């Protein structure tokens, strides 16, 4: 009998709830630190990004108008699904160079982080809202609203916990997101897309691209239909580029440099607030 061939997974992009190959047809050969595994990773293009933004924009209204309680449940569900796929993430993290213990810790913390933001999803609004004193017969109040479509450049070093730490607060706030996964460790990101796909997150709420940062940061920051950009990294020239491009349509640039995503201090409700904007309403008193 002939030896059975393993069926290897094709790592693709995640756009609009589908797993397409890159429109450009380009690939990056990714090899693990021990040089035992080689995988072809999609080298996402600006057109892939454009398509992802279209998908994120289309689904924004549906996602942001869900009740906060419902968004909370869906985030919790992502945590549940990640728990169920623990062994698969273990294997991939180890291939990417983690120790077994390190991988276990990363998965635990990623799940906990999702549950953390699931808890905040239906609480941040009342905490961050306020009634403002005004010298006129109006009832004046301010509350946070989602900014819209957010582009995000995920941390390069920690692939799973970094990705989760970026995505969770953005979508907890009712935004939709197009995220560029870690360039160095891309395997977990696409597998995480499979988790999202089975967690009642509607297609287009989270879109995950892989590819070269240097090539895509320009588009991520200049697209006029993106309302905020979250950048994880510490390259001064990239940060400058993002801040300049953000001025084109006054999108909000949020930069996280030198964060240790394993640290509990990197999770807080203010990170949800980072991609929200305040709406103030004047309501006549006595009507």
């Amino acid at each position, binding site marked *: 009998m002939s030896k059975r061939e393993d069926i290897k997974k094709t790592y693709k992009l995640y756009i609009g709830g589908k797993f397409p190959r890159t429109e450009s047809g380009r690939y990056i050969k990714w090899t693990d630190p021990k040089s035992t595994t080689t995988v072809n990773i999609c080298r996402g293009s600006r057109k892939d990004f454009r398509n992802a933004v279209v998908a994120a924009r289309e689904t924004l209204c549906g996602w942001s108008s869900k009740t906060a309680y419902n968004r909370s449940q869906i985030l919790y569900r992502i945590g549940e699904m990640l728990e169920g796929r623990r062994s698969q993430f273990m294997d991939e993290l180890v291939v990417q160079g983690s120790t077994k213990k390190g991988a276990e810790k990363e998965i635990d913390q990623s799940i906990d982080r999702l549950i953390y933001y699931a808890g905040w999803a239906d609480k941040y609004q009342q905490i961050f809202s306020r009634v403002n004193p005004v010298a006129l017969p109006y009832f004046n109040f301010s509350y946070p609203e989602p900014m819209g479509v957010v582009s995000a450049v995920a941390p390069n070093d920690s692939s799973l916990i970094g990705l989760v730490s970026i995505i969770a607060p953005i979508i907890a706030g009712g935004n939709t997101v197009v995220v560029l996964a870690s360039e160095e460790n891309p395997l977990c990101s696409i597998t995480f897309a499979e988790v999202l796909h089975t967690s009642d997150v509607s297609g287009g709420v989270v879109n995950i691209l892989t590819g070269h940062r240097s090539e895509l940061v320009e588009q991520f920051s*200049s697209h*006029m239909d993106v309302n905020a950009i979250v950048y994880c990294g510490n390259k001064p020239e990239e940060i400058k580029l993002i801040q300049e491009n953000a001025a084109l349509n006054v999108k909000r640039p949020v930069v996280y440099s030198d964060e240790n995503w394993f640290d509990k201090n990197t999770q807080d409700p203010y990170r949800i607030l980072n991609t929200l904007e305040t709406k103030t309403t004047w309501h006549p008193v006595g009507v």
Partner: protein
Amino acid sequence: MESFINRIDQVGAQERIARFFSRSIKKKSKINALKAVLSMIDLTTLEGKDSPGKVKQLCYKAVHLHDQFPDLPTVAAICVYPTMVSIAKKSLNNTDINVASVATAFPSGMTSLEYKLNEVRMVVADGADEVDMVISRGKFLQGEYNYVADEIAFVKEACGKAHLKVILETGELVTLDNVRLASDIAMEAGADFIKTSTGKVSPAATPPVVLVMLEAIRDYYKKTGKKIGMKPAGGISKAKLAIQYLVMIKETLGQDWLNADLFRFGASSLANDVLMQIVKQSIGVYQSANYFSLD
């Protein structure tokens, strides 16, 4: 009617379309194509809730597509319901933009010939430059081809100087053979344009249907020397698809048809997508619908 019968090779049509759609139009050609698309649009509003205000707004848009951007063409025409013709005509005074009106009990066409002709005379009297009629699909499917042909001929007569576009409503004609037959009947009966759809029935304009109609126009031109126009309508909302249609025209009918006298897009949201592409091509940044006027 014997001479009308043509058998359409469905697989062949699909294959031909796959070829057209693989053409890559870049850079300068793309910008020229995008501008050409704009100049061929029949900016359309055909809703029961249309108001004079909406029609005036649309007319303003037709003239001022995107004022921040110089050198843009205007659209070819505004397409409205009969009661809105005079309002559109007034709003488009002193422009080259035509007013097209749907007529003949659009979109179903389910009324008597007398009423249809009265409607056509009314819109022409109100100043419509173009009339978009619907054929009687029920009669057509029952095989009453003479009835359909006569009806078109009567409407053409009622149109006077106005151009007549004949809507086949291909989504209800079931087969490509029927599409070809209906195209031939419409052209023989006096249509100036043949048009795919009302936009009220799904599917609307599909590439195979458009190809079959273009081939009918080509064959009719070879036979008689008369150039009939083509108007795909319904479901064309993206610039990319519109450019692919231009490729199809160019390679089926040739350069002569690549202008608003012989080719139109019936669309409402296409204009904004094209504008977004034109601005993207010029400043290099992907655009957002927030920065373009409503249509």
